[in-house]
């Protein structure tokens, strides 16, 4: 079977369809107001966007900075000195797709946790 070219074309089609379906599910998944800001695997802040005042703060990693902005109950990376700026161009955090800055190891995402804080 694996020598059949049609088999491999079918595999591609399945991957494409699965990727598409999975993307749509992620885009339409519901989320709460709680957001975690994680750097290098450690949760720095857990924030409730519905209660946060508009403000900005900076997260540093090995001397490089990401400026995070909270405004009108939304959150985004406003400025960054990472090389690719993907985090900035991602814009406001929407849906269950995190804002990620790979070079600076920063992740901002909606949390489904009901924890008030994490010790450690």
């Amino acid at each position, binding site marked *: 079977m694996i020598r059949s070219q049609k088999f491999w074309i079918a595999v591609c089609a399945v991957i494409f369809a699965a990727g598409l379906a999975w993307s749509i599910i992620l885009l339409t998944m519901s989320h709460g107001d709680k957001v975690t800001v994680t750097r290098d695997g450690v949760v720095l802040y857990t924030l409730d966007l519905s*209660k946060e005042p508009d403000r900005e703060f900076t997260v540093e990693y090995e001397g490089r900075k990401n400026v995070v902005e909270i405004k009108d109950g939304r959150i985004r990376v406003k400025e960054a000195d990472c090389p690719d700026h993907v985090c900035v161009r991602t814009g406001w955090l929407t849906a269950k797709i995190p804002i990620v800055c790979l070079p600076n190891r920063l992740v901002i995402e909606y949390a489904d946790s009901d924890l*008030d804080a*994490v010790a450690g």
Partner: protein
Amino acid sequence: MKKLLCLPIAALIMLCSCADSSSEHIKTLYCMDTHMTLKAYGDKAEAALEKAVGTLVDLDAKWSVTNTDSEIYKVNHAGGGTVQVSPETSELVSFGRDMYEKSDRTLDISIYPILLEWGFTIHYYKVPAQERISKLLWNVNASKIGVNSSGVTVPADMMIDLGSVAKGAASDMICGELRKAGVESAVLDLGGNIQTLGSKPGSGKWKIGIRDPEGSGIIGSVSVENKAVVTSGGYERQFTENGKTYHHIIDPSTGWPAESGLVSVTVIGDSGRMCDALSTSLFIMGAEKAYHYWRKTGGFDYIALTKSGELLVSSGIAEDFDLDKDHKNIKVTVVK
């Protein structure tokens, strides 16, 4: 149809949160080399948090071991002389010194020169030579610290660092301040040192996660009121050289990272600085000694994760502990 249903539900939720008079206030800051989140509820919270931030910055300025203007820096560089310090500094140094004997000599605030040698303070890690460690160990002995009304004295070749108790002590202090200001509920996260004040508005106890030493999740959570929750683990700062991993919790009896068979220790108690100190101590002691220490002293509860993946939970907190759903494979043993 489903979407239509969502609207009234969302409206209801919004109404509920409006009716809740205890509004949440949050402050985040970077202080004492770590990220802090202070959350407090009620009308008085805003002003009280503002003040708490000031207190934290002030304490950091006094207790920093690297800031040349700090009281601790002055104490360390007085060449054996006595340095006049603020009451809170002298109080904490005296607490740290007393904890040395009380913790069976596992917590030593004069371990700093050895941490420096390992490079843990500056992230420039190296494994020191044994002779170097042995030589430095001569001057590691917190009982030699003098504290009295005229100030703090450390011997000329000794250096102290309040890092192992500072965050706990700071959380105690701001917790007291918030209470005085009329705040009835708050949760303070000082870089993973958690202190709770009162209970959570609306839902009772605070739910505090305990970080999973591997990965970014949690191994479980404890539900507490008016308690401090502090976790210590080698994972917080470590490096690998020649295939061996070295972490930052140094056993003062050897000068080497503690090899006690524990991966992380969480202490739950009334006093933040006590929890802070004990989480380090119990980690160094290991499961067996920690258990006997807990039986003998009491006044706190602990949760210890062993290298073999067993979780030891002391009986006082067992009922309020929940294992995380992703870690059901961990064996939980309640110790009595």
